[in-house]
Each structure stands twice: as structure tokens, then as C-alpha cells.
């Protein structure tokens, strides 16, 4: 019986090590100084935060640095401007933005095109109105429909 238990424990430990392995080892942690000149140039806004960043996030940014040379000049400019702000958001905020992006990217292209217009309309709303909207928890669609005629 004891041998069975020892065997089970060993197998589970091996499984855990195998699962944790790819994260613990490998090229998951390049320090800023280890990056290539191209990577450093693409990720320049992150220079100060880089060495405190989690390995998975570094890998993600390295992936974005790889895409950087293929981007259009205006896209490169946007990435440079947004990178630091994006990196300094909380994980919850980033996840919220990703979810919203996925929802908006799913709508038909003509609706997507009107989004810029809607954003301008929303910006034109008085500040208290926008604050009120921000404070409202998103209600289920059916309940909302009943309230608004």
C-alpha cells in the first residue's frame, strides 16, 4: 500500500514539474540588456519597467516587437505612444479592454466604421452625464429595454 502511495506521489510530482517547467526555465526572462538593438528600439517606452515585468508579459512584448517592423509607419507611431500606458494599466483594465475589443471587432464592418462617430458623440456629452454612465453597472439587455421606451 505504501509503495502505491509513493508511486502515486512521484507521478503527480513529475506531472507538476512537467507543467511548471516551460514557465520556470527557458528563454522566459531576457533582461533589457539581453535584448537585440531592434527589440530595444521597438520596446523603448518599456525600458524602465522591463526588468520588473513578469516573464509571460515579456514574451508577449517580444512578440509585439517582432511584429513592429512589419507595421505601417502610423501604426508604429500609435504603438510607441500607447505602449507605456497600456503596460501601466492594471491587469483587470487590460482584460476589460480586450473583451470590449473582441465584442466590437465582432460587429459588421459598417458598424465598426461608425464607432469613431459614436465615440465623438459620447465625448460631446456633458461630463456629469458621462460620469453617470460610467457609474452604471452594465444591466442585462432585456431589463434595459423595459426601462427605455
Amino acid at each position: 500500500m505504501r509503495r502505491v502511495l509513493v508511486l502515486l506521489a512521484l507521478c503527480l510530482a513529475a506531472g507538476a514539474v512537467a507543467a511548471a517547467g516551460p514557465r520556470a526555465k527557458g528563454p522566459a526572462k531576457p533582461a533589457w540588456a539581453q535584448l537585440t538593438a531592434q527589440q530595444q528600439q521597438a520596446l523603448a517606452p518599456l525600458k524602465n519597467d522591463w526588468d520588473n515585468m513578469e516573464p509571460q508579459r515579456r514574451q508577449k512584448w517580444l512578440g509585439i516587437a517582432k511584429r513592429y517592423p512589419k507595421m505601417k509607419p502610423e501604426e508604429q507611431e500609435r504603438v510607441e505612444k500607447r505602449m507605456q500606458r497600456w503596460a501601466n494599466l492594471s491587469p483587470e483594465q487590460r482584460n476589460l479592454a480586450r473583451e470590449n475589443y473582441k465584442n466590437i471587432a465582432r460587429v459588421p464592418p459598417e458598424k465598426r466604421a461608425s464607432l469613431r462617430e459614436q465615440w465623438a458623440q459620447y465625448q460631446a456629452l456633458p461630463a456629469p452625464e458621462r460620469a453617470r454612465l460610467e457609474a452604471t453597472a452594465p444591466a442585462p439587455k432585456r431589463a434595459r429595454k423595459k426601462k427605455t421606451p
Partner: protein
Amino acid sequence: MSRDDVPNKAMNEHQFGDRIAHLLNQGLRLDAHELARLRDAREQALERLQPEPAGALAWAGRLVGSWGGWGMVSLRLAAPVVALGIAVSAVYTWQQKQRAAEVEEIDALLLTDDLPLDVYLDRGFQNWLKKTAAEQ
């Protein structure tokens, strides 16, 4: 049959017991000599009987016995458990990679999008969009 061949012996004892039960059901007349022999046999069997391990231990013991002893345990038990462990870690690693690739893709799109980040960050705007969509 060798004496230490435990599973076969156990089976024969069962068959033997069944035969005795069968004979007893038919109605058995035993004289004093046969009764004495039966009693002796029973006492001998009880003497040889090891104290039965309780609960899970007994179950594990029978299981190990049915697998062909401890020698086979490592193969029959460890192989599926190791395979399961490898499969679970492979699925986990694959999921992590998929998730990382998806996050990288969306982040690249968000960072290069022609609309400002606030379009996707502003809760008020998201609520307003839902509200106006519901009003239409």
C-alpha cells in the same frame, strides 16, 4: 501446482468449498470419524489463516494479488498515471500557449487600432453604446 501459486490455490479452495456446500445441501450423514476429520481440517485452516487486513488495506492487497503481485504494480499502475500526468501537462502547456498567442494578437491590434485606447477602456462609453443600441 506449486504451493506458492496463491491465486490458483485460492480458486481451488473456492471450488472445493462449493463442492462441500453442494454435498451438504444434498443432505450429509457423517459419522464421528468424519466429523473429527472435518473439525481438524477447520482448526488447521484457522491456524494458518492470517489476520485479515481491514478496509482499504484488504482491498489493495486483493488488487495487488489480482495484478500478479508487486512486480506488476509498477507497470500496471505507473504507466497509466504517468501517461495521464504527461497528457494533463501537455494540455495545460498548449492552453497557456494558445492564451498567450491570443493575448499577443489582441494587444497588437489594440495598440495599432485607428481608434484611441479609451474607446475600449471607458466603461461609460461601453454602457452608452449598449444603451443607444437598446433604444434603436
